[in-house]
């Protein structure tokens, strides 16, 4: 194949090498740190009218005030100031490790299902997490506190392809660099905390954590994060508790709670040297690839900004609706507002798939029946419809009145640009139409 034939590959490779060799970000950062802050001439111009004695007196008052302020800042490590200081300090950290404990209220069936694939699993299982600025992450999942080896490892080096290795079923999944919205970053968490309004932060007092004293703060989870459509509502946390060491000013424990789940991040270590090769991504020998096409990435909701719906997401919606109609005997979800989770459960029920609440990604290859496989591969298309309906996209879904035989009736539509709408008809044809034409056909 000549370079002309694989133009996209050629450009991608070139871009990759360009990014790998570039030190522009470091040079800009160095420039920003060394650049002196310009002093506005007009800000000091009023001093020109003062005598030298007045200037000296004023200078003394200003200096005294500055010293008092500095003493106050240095001594006041309690209350919300500590919270703000911890955010600043955490934002400057270069590395971090912690353990994550996820406690779920599971039914007996769900426990049995997990045990089927992982006999060693129990509720003492933990996740060990490594992070390095600006965004390389690795997490290792241990089935129980007694486990010496992880059952799953995910490695996402910053700006490079990542890998998830499931030792328990001998498979691996390759992640593309930068394109996965689930890439994690401690700094992003900190940025979200920074945006939390001060009045929304509740003080919890002090307690001993590890060798030091930590001060606790509580915020509402919804003040920090949008709901995740792939997690059942009862498992989405209500509150987030953040405990901060009063001496180091770094978080020592973060806890997210709901009625049905409790996730605790503990044993934090900040700015420590990480094990060598911790972000190396090596395909394990003899493991099967479980890499899915990027096309199946669902749209998250509610989006913090107006989202764009990609062509592959439209394809996913169509496949999900087609599969739903086949399973239901010829109709789409008969509702006005589609609830992604409810539709997903209905779809799995019709397909005869035992879908546990805690599994957000079903593996299609687990199912022998082609329709079950298709349901497992496409259900996220239904969640995508919910996301579109919740986003500010002037969307409408007509599943009550429109079925697969209604070739010319609008089943789903949403605003594409200011002038056009994306339409999916009853027979699942797609078309981009003007607002004027939409009025005629809807």
């Amino acid at each position, binding site marked *: 194949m000549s370079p002309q034939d694989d133009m996209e590959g050629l*450009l991608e490779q070139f871009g990759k090498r360009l990014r790998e060799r570039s030190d522009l970000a470091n040079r800009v950062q160095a420039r920003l740190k060394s*650049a002196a802050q310009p002093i506005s001439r007009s800000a000091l111009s009023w001093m020109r009218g003062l005598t030298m004695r007045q200037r000296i007196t004023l200078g003394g008052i200003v200096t005294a005030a500055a010293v008092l302020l500095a003493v106050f800042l240095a001594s006041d490590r309690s209350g919300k100031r500590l919270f703000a200081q911890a955010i600043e300090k955490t934002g400057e950290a270069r590395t971090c490790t912690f353990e994550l404990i996820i406690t779920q209220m599971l039914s007996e069936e769900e426990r049995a299902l997990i045990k089927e694939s992982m006999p060693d699993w129990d509720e003492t299982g933990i996740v060990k997490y490594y992070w390095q600025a600006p965004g390389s992450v690795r997490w290792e999942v241990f089935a129980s506190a007694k486990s010496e080896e992880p059952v799953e490892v995910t490695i996402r080096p910053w700006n490079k392809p990542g890998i998830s290795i499931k030792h328990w079923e001998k498979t691996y999944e390759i992640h593309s660099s930068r394109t996965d919205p*689930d890439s994690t970053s401690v700094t992003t968490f900190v*940025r979200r905390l920074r945006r939390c309004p001060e009045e929304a932060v509740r003080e919890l007092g002090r307690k001993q954590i590890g060798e030091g004293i930590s001060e606790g703060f509580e915020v509402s989870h919804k003040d920090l994060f949008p709901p995740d459509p792939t997690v059942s509502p009862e498992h989405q946390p209500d509150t987030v508790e953040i405990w901060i060491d009063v001496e180091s000013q770094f978080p020592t424990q973060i806890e997210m709670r709901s009625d049905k789940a409790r996730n605790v991040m503990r044993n934090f270590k900040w700015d420590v040297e990480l094990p060598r090769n911790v972000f190396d991504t090596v395909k394990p020998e003899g493991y099967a690839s479980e890499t899915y096409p990027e096309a199946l990435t669902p749209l998250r909701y509610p989006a913090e900004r107006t989202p764009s719906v990609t062509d592959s997401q439209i394809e996913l919606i169509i496949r999900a609706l087609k599969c739903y109609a086949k399973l239901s005997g010829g109709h789409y979800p008969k509702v006005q507002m589609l609830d992604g989770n409810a539709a997903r459960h209905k779809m799995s029920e019709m397909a005869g798939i035992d879908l546990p609440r805690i599994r957000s990604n079903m593996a299609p290859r687990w199912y022998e029946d082609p329709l079950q496989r298709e349901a497992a591969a496409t259900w996220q298309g239904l969640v995508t419809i919910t996301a579109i309906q919740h986003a500010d996209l002037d969307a409408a879904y007509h599943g009550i009145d429109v079925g697969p035989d209604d070739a010319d009736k609008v089943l789903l539509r949403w605003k594409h640009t200011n002038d056009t709408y994306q339409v999916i008809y009853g027979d699942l044809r797609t078309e981009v139409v003007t607002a004027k034409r939409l009025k005629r056909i809807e």
Partner: protein
Amino acid sequence: MLVTRSHLSELFMPSTEELVQAATEGDVSAFSELVRRYEGTVTVTAWSIVRDFHTAQDVAQESFVIAYQKLSQLRDARAFGPWILTIVKCEALQIQKKRAKQAAGAVALDEAIPASAGCWTEFEEIVPVLSQLPEQERIVVSLRYLDGLPVRDVAEATGRPVGTVTKQLSRAVQRLRGLLIEAER
């Protein structure tokens, strides 16, 4: 499996909007992430005007520094992409003007500013071809392939619908194919 990506998804990859907001609050590392996100497109845009690799890099660096200093003036954080491209174009044009003045003086331009000999040849092979694309196509190709942004992020950065960006990308790739064949003749 007990732990899914969504359990950790609270800590998503930051959006341009989030990075701009953090950088506005003084977070230099957030701004560095913005630099990484747009550096390819910014450098190529600078090169299309100054036609020299080292100068393009200097212009890119200067443009990002200016952007950081004026970040509070950016009204819509999502518009960082088009905004930084406007800055880089202004900067590159100013450099061009200075160079033109120098060229008009006693010193020959070729001697005053070393040409790109010895610099990264791959850049000099691909970017001139890329620069022959219409501006809008060059920008979407650079964002998509050189900076590695997903199509939806390219759409956001350019303020165009995903469908339009997809079509522009496809047209641009076709056009580049033809340009490369022509260049090899």
